[in-house]
């Protein structure tokens, strides 16, 4: 996987002067991609469960806790109203950012070749 978007470094004279992608960048075997998919899926399922828990908690709180609908917070708003008006959206945003960040981190670590990001550093001195 080449997520860096850097210019390919390999020049093939048979291609009549055209740049061709460095085949060395195509590093991942099918098993690697499968593994990454499973791990990212685990991230997605975990975050979805959190999402589901919070979303389902709102009507449950409405049904079970009287204060949730009758109590007053800042500006005379009920906790239920605050949650529906702002709280849920903030929560969705935070959850989405967390899931995306973790998924990207997983892909970075599980795919590609981290060693080849620093070329030439193991060359022997002349």
């Amino acid at each position, binding site marked *: 996987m080449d997520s860096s978007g850097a210019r390919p470094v390999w020049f093939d004279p048979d291609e009549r002067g055209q740049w061709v992608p460095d*085949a*060395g960048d*195509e*590093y991942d*075997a099918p*098993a*690697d991609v*499968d*593994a990454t998919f*499973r*791990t*990212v899926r*685990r*991230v997605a399922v975990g975050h979805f469960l959190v999402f589901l828990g919070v979303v389902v908690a709102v009507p449950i709180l409405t049904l*079970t*806790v*009287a*204060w*949730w609908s009758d*109590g007053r917070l800042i500006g005379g708003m009920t906790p239920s109203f605050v949650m529906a008006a702002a709280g849920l959206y903030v929560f969705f945003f935070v959850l989405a950012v967390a899931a995306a960040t*973790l998924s990207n*981190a*997983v892909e970075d*670590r*599980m795919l590609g*070749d*981290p*060693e*080849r990001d620093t070329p030439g550093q*193991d060359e022997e001195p002349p």
Partner: protein
Amino acid sequence: MRNGSLPLAFAVALAWGVVYLFTQVFADPPLGVAVTVLIGVAITLVLTVGYPSALRGPRTIRPARPTAGRHGNTIAAVGRSMPLRSGLTTEAARRAVELLHPVLGGDSVAITDREKVLAFLGPGSDHHRVGSEPQTEASARVLARGRTIVVRDRRRLGCPNADCPLQSAVVAPLAIGDRVVGTLKVYRLDDIPPPRGVVEGLAGILSLHLELAELDHERKLAVHARLDALRAQINPHFLFNTLNTIASKARTDPEEARQLLLRLSDFFRYAVRQDRHLVEFGQEYFFVRTYLSLEQARYGERLQIRYDVDPQVLTAHVPVLTIQPLVENAVKHGLADKLDGGTVTLKARVDPLTRTTAIRVSDDGVGMRPEVLEQLTGEHGTPNGGIGLRNISERLEALYGERYRLDIQSHYGDGTIVDLRIPLG
């Protein structure tokens, strides 16, 4: 140290259910929301904090920190505090003289190595400077003979400074085995020297600490040597086989041959570059992937691979060059002899509650006969069991002591499972 997250989640859910029942259903009138939430949060906190501790088991009670200068158990306090446990350094010597000064019955205390004064506390420190050469002739005699000497007059002390207030001294050698590496010097301002027995006794304790420090150093060197041994042990047959595979692909599929060469270089680059003992799991995972891709080029469809990796485990630290030898064993001893091949599975998990990283390498290959398994899991292992496994076990022991587990389960004809559990770092 099984995964404890699910039982905890169940316990927390149950606790909130019970809290709800007792505060909202059974109580008449029901308790307020704030009180209910407070009770629920308190119980959740107790469960969440206490549960991992319960899983880890009782902790050893640490002895109380000794107080320097308190008489009565001062010798024992010095023994426990181990000021020179990290070796004969300036900082360790300074801490040692600060600790010893009140208990040695002298006015000044100094510690030197063979070349210089490492610490000096008390009158005379204006010219017996830290970093300078030991000035008294007494020090030179002790370093040469390795025996304690008692000096009763200023002339025999041999300090070249005419204004030196020090009159008498006991100078005891600090030795590692038979080798004198320094001195412990206790001076007095009058001609009655400090008690020789106390000085000799404490010099003996300090010598013991120095010996332990050297043992520690040797142990670290041994761990380095084991890592070097494992690096050097990369099977030459693996190299020959991979090169043969590349040679055979060079004509039919030059691009794949090129890929394999790149991976082979990655494999050796990683193995050679590692000079740390712990690396991120992600790096070891890359090494394992590289290795298995090379083996897969050789075995083709006979070798199937399945990775099952927790997202949290990718940043956990694991001992370097630990997982690949386990995977290599699975390929070499588990699947190579099986005609229709099989699957190697690498599973990695983190249990945040027990602060454990669990790594499992399994295969559905030929397995091991009970007697071979017995030899491998026996107290002394076996030379035939592979240097790799023994090397891993020794390195884990050096890194974690008793806090790791390496379990092997195998049934002949039914594959092998190697479980490794290490503290989360």
